[in-house]
């Protein structure tokens, strides 16, 4: 009993220390402002995101680069959702090109699939996976600025794209240096290999976690997105950080989530999927959409960093 109390106290301290409080639900939020429902393949699209003025709206999708019919179908659903949720950009979780990187591959596996979004000036920000060559960093439409790891800012969110294929001293120093001077309210990191995962095929990348997690904790990273596993998973918050896997954008590893995993808060491995996200002030809302347009997870994360910091003063 006493041990439980101590453990609870420690957990609360860790959360407060990290500046977060979690309010995540597995269902649609009652606060959802928009309940738009245009018809998509006969089924209505339901939006649970609040569509607040001035919010940061984006998509997270990973392991896309197949050029398959299924990748295209999922891209079509993304496009339809954009009618009700006008997202500004897309984060690619790596494995942007499977099996070759000729100009024809770039067309087939990326440009043709997302042509309409590209025409609408939706920007894609890529990270490198284990099937991606470093030269992708020069590709105009991946917006990597010629770097394997880079930072960009949208509103009150700083995004860090890391190269988890090759997390060397040089990159770790860069990350630490950047984060140490970053006072943005939300710090979000995305990279290919997930530090936590309930995948039977790969599982958690513990060696990567060993080197990056202390840095995330030290500098208050709020959320981490990864791919590599070809399914969706929302992990239980780990030391106050919210980890997501969105790696079913072009391939699916059906039934790969270990149902007994103590790490999982919610997982979906029955079909391909992507995430819609909206950051409005201290809240990060998310909604996960399957290839059939159904919502398979949704919720909100509350970042209390600003409040904690002013309270500390």
């Amino acid at each position, binding site marked *: 009993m006493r041990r439980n109390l101590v453990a609870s106290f420690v957990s609360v301290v860790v959360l407060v220390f990290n500046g977060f409080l979690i309010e995540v639900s597995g269902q649609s939020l009652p606060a959802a402002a928009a309940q738009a429902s245009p018809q998509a393949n006969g089924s209505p699209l339901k939006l649970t995101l609040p569509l607040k003025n001035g919010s940061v709206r984006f998509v997270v999708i990973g392991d896309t680069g197949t050029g398959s019919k299924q990748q295209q179908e999922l891209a079509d659903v993304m496009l339809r959702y954009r009618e009700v949720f006008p997202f500004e950009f897309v984060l690619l979780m790596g494995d942007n090109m499977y099996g070759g990187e000729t100009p024809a591959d770039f067309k087939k596996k990326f440009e043709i699939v997302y042509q309409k979004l590209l025409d609408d000036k939706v920007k894609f920000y890529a990270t490198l996976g284990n099937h991606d060559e470093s030269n992708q960093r020069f590709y105009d439409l991946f917006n*990597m600025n010629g770097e394997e790891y880079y930072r960009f800012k949208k509103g009150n969110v700083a995004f860090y794209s890391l190269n988890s294929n090759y997390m060397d001293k040089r990159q770790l120093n860069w990350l630490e240096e950047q984060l140490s001077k970053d006072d943005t309210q939300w710090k979000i990191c995305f990279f290919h290999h997930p530090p936590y995962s309930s995948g039977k095929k790969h599982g958690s990348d513990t060696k990567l976690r060993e080197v990056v997690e202390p840095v995330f904790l030290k500098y208050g990273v709020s959320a981490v997105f990864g791919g590599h596993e070809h399914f969706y998973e929302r992990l239980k918050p780990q030391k106050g950080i919210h980890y997501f896997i969105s790696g079913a954008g072009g391939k699916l590893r059906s039934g790969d989530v270990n149902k007994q995993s103590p790490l999982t808060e919610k997982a979906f491995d029955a079909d391909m999927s992507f995430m819609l996200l909206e950051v409005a002030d201290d809240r990060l809302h998310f909604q996960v959409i399957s290839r059939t347009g159904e919502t398979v997870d949704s919720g909100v994360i509350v970042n209390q960093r600003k409040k904690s910091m002013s309270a500390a003063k």
Partner: protein
Amino acid sequence: MKQRTKKSSVFVGGLTVMLCIALSPLSISAGTLLARRRQDARGGAVAARYARAVRAFEERAEAYAKERERLEETLPKLSKESTPEQIHAHKTAFRELVRKSRAGARQGQIFDRVIAAHIRATIRSEFKGRERAKLRETVMEADTKGVPLRVNYPYPETKELLEIPPTLLLKLPQLPKQLRYRFVERNMLLVDRENGLIVDYMRNALP
């Protein structure tokens, strides 16, 4: 008389036993110390040898990087807003330049025997037991079959570029940013990150 002799022999025997007991830890510790010193000296010599080997390895890698930079500068620069065609053309031209320049390159010119032994030892100490088994499984299952173990040959772009565990990367000699360690089955390769050439390789890096 006989009894006296017996008494003195018992006394001498007892004294010997006591002395032995008292001195034995000293003699053991003196022996251990000597052995340890010898071992330390050997260890120190090995460490110094490895330190020299690491420095020399890093210098050889740097020399490669410098040369390929010189060659790359002769090509039109890739901008950060390149098209796939420009990226492909640059990679192909760059690869050919370096291949020609290193036409006589042979295996072991960068990974010499001493550094290869050091890298094997580093991997052995970093991965033990279940972790080692898991690493082997990951490496052996990766889509790297068919990658040629040949210096100055391209790493096929259709093949997977397996993640190098970061905790290992932090312990391996640091490479210039243009070069990458890569696992292909049990072997370790040095691959140029832009032109994709296999610059050198060592066999049986994985225990």
